[in-house]
């Protein structure tokens, strides 16, 4: 099929401000686009061109921030085109894996019943489906240490809630669009909350201070409210050290 003049060819590279460059892998969400964004993120950081300061992967794009007085936009674009010729479909590196405890339902997950109704499942089935799903950290964003994880099975493709909650605590498990948003600080949200982890993945007293990075894998594990009281952030960082 011949592309129409106005059709955009992906990946598309464009300037984002005078110190940024954005590589978009599509214009709607597909998990393959996220995998490509994360693969490119890895390749760039693995052989960081001079003048590149940081990269920020998101669901279907990657932002590269650079000093335009050290490397020109055109020169950086050439380097990125070179990376894009590589196979971005096959993962070149494996992220780390974490099992994260969480309390589901009750005060910790006030929207569990509503989600169960929307999914047409019993709440225990919803919890099982969630805890059985291996999820990938697709990006971090919105707030410090807030990870967007997925994808959950198709049955989790439910919209955002209509009401915005002014604040949910860090550690909340927030659900919409086959994703779990897992914030590390309090935040407002329109997403539905099915549970809360006693662990925060952003801790100033730990190294690294941000536990999760895009590309890591996580699975949630149900714990009782009682057990959660005895769990601290330490258990996640202990896993990390192994």
């Amino acid at each position, binding site marked *: 099929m011949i592309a129409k003049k106005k059709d955009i060819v992906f990946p598309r590279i464009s300037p984002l401000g005078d110190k940024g460059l954005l590589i978009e892998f599509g214009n*709607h969400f597909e998990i393959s686009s996220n995998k490509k964004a994360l693969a490119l993120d890895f390749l760039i950081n693995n052989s960081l061109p001079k003048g590149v300061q940081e990269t920020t992967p998101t669901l279907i794009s990657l932002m590269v921030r650079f000093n335009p007085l050290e490397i020109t936009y055109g020169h950086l674009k050439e380097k990125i085109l070179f990376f894009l010729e590589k196979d971005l479909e096959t993962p070149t590196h494996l992220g780390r894996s974490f099992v994260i405890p969480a309390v589901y339902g009750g005060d910790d997950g006030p929207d569990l019943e509503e989600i169960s109704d929307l999914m047409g499942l019993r709440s225990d089935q919803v919890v099982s489906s969630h805890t059985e799903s291996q999820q990938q950290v697709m990006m971090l964003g919105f707030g410090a240490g807030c990870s967007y994880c997925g994808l959950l099975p198709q049955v989790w493709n439910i919209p955002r809630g209509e009401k915005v909650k002014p604040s949910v605590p860090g550690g909340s498990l927030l659900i919409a669009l086959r994703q779990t948003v897992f914030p590390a600080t309090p935040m407002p949200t329109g997403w539905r909350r099915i549970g809360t982890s006693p662990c925060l993945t952003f801790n100033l007293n730990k190294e690294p201070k*941000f536990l999760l990075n895009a590309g890591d894998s996580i699975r949630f594990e149900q714990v009782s409210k009682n057990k959660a009281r005895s769990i601290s952030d330490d258990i996640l960082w202990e896993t990390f050290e192994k």
Partner: protein
Amino acid sequence: MTLFVKKVFPGASIQDNGRPGLQRFGLTAGGAVDTLALNLGRSLFGDKSNTSVIEFSGAGGKFIVKRPSFFASTGANSTIKLNGVLKLQAEVFSASEDDEIEVSSISTGFYSYLHVAGGFLTAVHFGSRSGNIRAGLGTILKTGDYLPYASPVNVKISAIKMRNYTNCNKIRLISGPQTRLFSKKIFDNFLKTEFTITSSRDRMGIRLGHQGKKFDTKSGLNVLSEAIEIGDIQIDGQGVPTILLNDRQPTGGYPRIATVISADLHKVAQIGVNSTFKFTLVSLNEAIKALKDFTDELSDLENEVFNLTRDPSDIDNLLSYGLIDGAIRGDEYEES
């Protein structure tokens, strides 16, 4: 010892160069909004390192000096007094124990800065003392706080020429990846529109007001969360533009119509509430040329610093001296 915060209005924080490099973890760099003011102050004290300052937004505060040191103010046009006696901006002055420093009446501009020799020594997170409310990092000033600062070393009573950049009415921008989500007609209209800075502004962003049509997008409300750059101008669901600044969210799903160029970020951030301005579209090359000029200006500041022959803080009847030409801009007293 320390600087005692006798009274401070909300929005004051400790700031330095911020925390670049952490946007992938959901943390934007933060740092002083007006990098020119930050560097004017650093040049006065010969600071090459990442020293921190107090940043005031829209209103100032009163402080009691608990150990003799040297101070200076830069940024928005404000009144600075030592024990009730007027001090000039961009001039180093000495203060003794129990002296009171007052920063007030921010007139032209919005962000004002109080520098101390060697910088403040408040809490460091990720190599920076910058206060970030949302992430709970660094220091946000509260009345009753004690702010530790460095011992003054080799301080000269010096001054630098203040610049007039806090009431710009032209701000340059470049188009971005999401500009195409707006029709040409809407984008042209955006460039013709006179905007007002509203009072809905902070270190995260500035909400703009304007007369006339809203800036509707064709398909923009379906944008997936993408990294937000400093200076991005997002158009929300109501068609209202917001310029996103240092403490912006790291990612967002509202379409961005364009991005303010780096060299104009401090200028747009300094425009006062209810002041008006227009945007001018420039090319990426022009933006980078402007950035180079601005970078050169910052690195040349140290050469512009000159020593004052006498310590003005020792001169009780300062205003009777013929200092009006040379050391200061010249219009400070017309406003007070």
